[in-house]
């Protein structure tokens, strides 16, 4: 096992109260007992469909909400929602890159404004101008003087996302949270951004959380993959293990559904699109199914799947899953 976690979520659950008319409320059970650890110089990919709770987890890490139960720990110390300078102290270690490069930069402010503000807020006391150019070089926006005075609308999506990353790097964080950082970029720009994140992880020793719905890109970037379904973590472990030897029926479904040209194009030039069974849709988190939330869609669901969420079963290589299929086996053996 590598050195202790920089940032971790310990058994966090998150419920949102949604207001309806006249005091009517509904509870959204967005996360259930999720634990996740981020380590220095390593990437954890969190994979799941939209609405599975992965953004909620990222936002809990970013202290935007207080978890309903469980805690977020920074180097072992529990942290809560803060304001003012204590918040700033936390944010000087944990930064986030958001999904939409077109929305995450204020259209009225230049690149310089963004970087300077980040540096000032975190009391950078060296040569501001020099540091800003250094940051832009770090994210390969060169020649830097061409970019520093630009407004967001003068930049492409990939360039904007690089500015966002530079802004996050300005505070010299230990942890970088990426909430689908490439999903809205042009395809041809995605890999280079992933490569940039990888080099930051390797060279600066950043702990990286990479949230995505694209399991292939998760495999490309991350050492570890966690799969989330409807607010529950169902499987995780070394990336290759999870991809090549999926345990949980949901992970299998996800892999089957993901495009993989190499798998299907036959030499005859005949495409044989691999269909999957009509597998239904993820449940509403307002009134989710009990037990394992995947059971209504699971081809191998058993009676116990409906009643309780299974305990975690782990293999020696760190590959784990929460599924009754394996729980009973391990109990039997």
């Amino acid at each position, binding site marked *: 096992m590598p050195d202790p976690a920089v940032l971790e979520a310990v058994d966090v659950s998150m419920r949102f109260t949604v207001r309806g008319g006249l005091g009517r409320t509904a509870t959204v059970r967005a996360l259930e007992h999720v634990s996740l650890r981020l380590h220095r110089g390593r990437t954890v990919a969190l994979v799941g469909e939209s609405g599975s709770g992965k953004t909620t987890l990222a936002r809990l890490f970013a202290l*935007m909400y207080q978890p309903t139960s469980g805690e977020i720990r920074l180097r072992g110390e529990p942290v809560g929602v803060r304001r003012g*300078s204590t918040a*700033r102290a936390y944010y000087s270690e944990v*930064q986030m890159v958001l*999904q939409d490069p077109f929305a*995450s930069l204020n259209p009225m402010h230049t690149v310089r404004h963004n970087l300077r503000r980040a540096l000032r807020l975190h009391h950078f006391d060296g040569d501001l101008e020099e540091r800003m150019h250094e940051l832009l070089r770090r994210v390969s926006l060169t020649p830097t003087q061409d970019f520093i005075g630009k407004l967001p609308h003068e930049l492409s999506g990939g360039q904007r996302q690089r500015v966002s990353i530079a802004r996050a790097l300005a505070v010299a964080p230990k942890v970088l949270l990426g909430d689908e950082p490439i999903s809205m970029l042009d395809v041809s720009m995605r890999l280079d951004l992933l490569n940039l994140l990888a080099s930051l992880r390797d060279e600066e020793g950043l702990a990286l959380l990479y949230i995505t719905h694209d399991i292939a890109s998760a495999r490309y970037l991350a050492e570890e993959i966690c799969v989330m379904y409807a607010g529950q973590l169902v499987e995780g472990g070394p990336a290759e293990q999870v991809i090549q030897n999926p345990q949980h029926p949901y992970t299998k479904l996800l892999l089957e559904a993901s495009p993989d040209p190499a798998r299907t194009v036959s030499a005859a030039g005949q495409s044989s699109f691999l269909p999957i069974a009509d597998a239904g849709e993820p449940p509403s988190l307002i009134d989710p199914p009990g037990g394992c939330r995947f059971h209504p869609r699971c081809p191998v669901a058993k009676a116990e799947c409906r009643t309780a969420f299974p305990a975690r079963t782990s293999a020696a290589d760190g590959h784990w899953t929460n599924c009754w299929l394996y729980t009973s086996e391990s109990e039997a053996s």
Partner: protein
Amino acid sequence: MVLRFLSGWKVRAGLTVFLLFCLLALLGPWFCSSVLHISPTALDVDSVSTPPSAGHLLGTTASGQDVLAQLITGARQSMIAGLVASVLGTSIAVLVGVTAGLAGGVVDSVLTALTNVFLTMPAFALIFVISGYTQGGGPVVIGIIIGIFGWAGGTRALRSQTLSLRNRDFVVAMRMLGESRVRLALVEVLPHLIGWISAMFLGGFVGGVLAEAGLAFLGLSSASTVSWGSMISEAQQGNALLGGMWWWFAPPGLCIALLGASVTLVNFGIDEISNPRLRNARRTLVRRARQAAVKGADSDE
């Protein structure tokens, strides 16, 4: 953005007229007394109810007052009422709307309910009732009353705009740098609302001028001040229309309409910027492109 805003003819024409009126309100009275040597209150007993002439460019009222002088002096009173109303109304609207949008939760619920209450109340009737108690007052008092009861309209729009801005990623991103709430509001959110606020301000201005005119027409402004509203009121009481004295009745109404139209033109421009869907493609360009296409196809044959 400013340049794009100023590039439309509507905005330019509207702003020009509006600024002319502002100049009139500012310098008008001085201009009357020092340059034209006319007074809005002096009675010229030799020419009563006379049509426009060299002596009285816009004629005189039934009591021999110079209509032009009244019109110019009235501009100041009407515009003061409009200005006070819109400054006050817009300030309350920004304060309530932006606060509600940024704060969320209970604060938002309370402020939203308050806004809706003011929005639903028949404001003009209320203003009328209150003016009934105050029985006359200068343009400032009237402007204040109009402002206090007329802010709610724009507040709703401002609140929903703020709300959507608050949840925009760039605000979230700055918050995650540890930016303070006040700076978030002032530096990140407020600049995006300038268009809305200025539209609201201008709309409130016209609303104020119209409401003042209405109240003056009802005899609820102080008798000593001359405003466009009181001119119409007096013209009505002096049977200007029945006597065919159009020069007395028409100018104040037209002035209000012109001022209102100028503001509307400016607001058109603001609207087109904040809602790009309203922009029309230049039809001539489209037609020309289509014709060129047809010709090109012909020559291909």
